[in-house]
């Protein structure tokens, strides 16, 4: 059987390389604001698994801050909004293959990601906090050394921990946020790096865990995300954020979900 596998490896590899090649050759469609206006609908990718940014409400419909921003965008464009629920791993593929026009999905702005996609100026921010048991003395990054720290896979906190502490910290990567919170509660990890507000609510409803906030890892500004060639749409989105920030609408949405004023969002 060994010769068989050997003879088949080469064509298989060739096939995969070919597929990858096709993927790179296929042109991402340049898209203008006029196209969306004449179509009458905008397809917006959102997350439904990151409370309170994106959740399923008690009627099982997408809801949350991101969804409200998406709907507000539709109002200003005067088109129908078609919300497409995405997951963090598949949001870039959905965008790059034109399945959505843009994504409003708590996407942190980083130079690494900007190689693939184009970000608007920040429209929201997410606070990343380290949580751990009350008996643990953790006040800074250094105190995490030698501990098992849980993070949702591929997130900004995952990258920061891996970069600054390297092998000094044992990172446990979970599929989503609830598993990460749960892992700390059931003691599978010593600490987690997660969204501040959600963690506060979750651990307040589980006082038996004796878990508290330790320190803020970072305040991450998020951008609305488009394909690299959507300059025309990009300019409109930036104008939209600028305008709704100034007239207080964005702040009102933020207060609705976070019960405090919109944090200071730097622009670029």
């Amino acid at each position, binding site marked *: 059987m060994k010769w*068989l*596998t050997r003879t*088949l490896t080469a*064509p*298989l590899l060739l*096939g995969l390389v070919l*597929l990858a090649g*096709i*993927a790179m050759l*296929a042109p991402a469609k340049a898209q203008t604001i006029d196209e969306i206006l004449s179509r009458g609908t905008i397809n917006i990718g959102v997350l*439904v*698994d*990151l*409370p309170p940014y994106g*959740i*399923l*409400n*008690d*009627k*099982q419909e997408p809801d949350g801050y991101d969804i409200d921003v998406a709907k507000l965008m539709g109002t200003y464009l005067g088109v129908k909004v078609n919300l*497409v*629920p*995405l*997951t963090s*791993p*598949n949001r870039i*593929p*959905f965008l790059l*293959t*034109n*399945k959505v026009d843009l994504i409003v999905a708590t996407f942190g702005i980083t130079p690494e990601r900007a190689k693939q996609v184009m970000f608007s100026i920040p429209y929201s921010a997410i606070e990343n906090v380290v949580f751990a048991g009350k008996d643990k003395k953790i006040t800074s990054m250094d105190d995490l050394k030698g501990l098992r720290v849980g993070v949702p896979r591929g997130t900004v906190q995952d990258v920061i921990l891996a970069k600054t502490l390297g092998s000094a910290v044992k990172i446990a990567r979970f599929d*989503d*946020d*609830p*598993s990460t*919170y*749960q892992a700390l509660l059931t003691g599978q990890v010593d600490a987690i790096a997660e969204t501040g507000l*959600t963690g506060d*609510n*979750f651990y307040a*409803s589980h006082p038996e865990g004796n878990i508290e906030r330790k320190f803020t890892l970072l305040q991450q500004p998020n951008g609305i995300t488009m394909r690299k060639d959507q300059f025309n749409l990009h300019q409109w989105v930036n104008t939209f954020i600028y305008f709704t920030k100034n007239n207080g609408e964005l702040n009102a949405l933020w207060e609705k979900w976070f019960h405090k004023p919109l944090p200071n969002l730097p622009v670029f």
Partner: protein
Amino acid sequence: MRQFNLGDFEFLLLATRWTILLSVYAAIGGGIVGLAVALMRTATNAIPRWIAIVYIRIFQGTPLLLQLFLVFFGGDMLGLPLGAWLSAVLGFSLNAGAFLGEIWRGAIQAVPNGQIEAAKALGLHYVPRMWRVVLPQAMRVAIPPTVGFLVNLIKSTSLAAIIGFVEVTRAGQMLNNATFKPFLIFGIVSAIYFALCWPLTLTSRRLEKRLALSLKR
């Protein structure tokens, strides 16, 4: 965070619909592909045999998740947008075809050669020989592993979540993300899967018994 309500339970049950439909379509599609693969794999001519071998190696040797990914996003790249539903059915059918093909090849080869020779001696051509002599006997051998594979197929439909398909596991994840009640929600999801798979196993056992009877005679 919000409470788990009756509407959520209904949402899970409605998502089960998609799990069932996807499983049924994948089983039918996989069955058609699988039969073709099995017949090609057991052919006397080397060319179809080799095509079938390459097909099986590719689909058994790469992860199902990637196959779904390639069908769904690859279709768009080639200017052939298939949509989540069709991509999922196509991806699962192609994958199931490779596995069922290999299972059924074994079953076909388990039919004693004397049967085929006798059929030939009676002047039966390929189609009646396969249809009336070989396949009915192969079926008996094939039932337990086929059902085993189908049970697995039902459970692997959860992978369709990667292409935005909301079946019962993904629905459970989405609700868990809103309510933070993993044990309750995934408990219900597991019970739903059990309710789908257990009757299948029971039916298989009954079928096996019935077919074993016909052998005893």
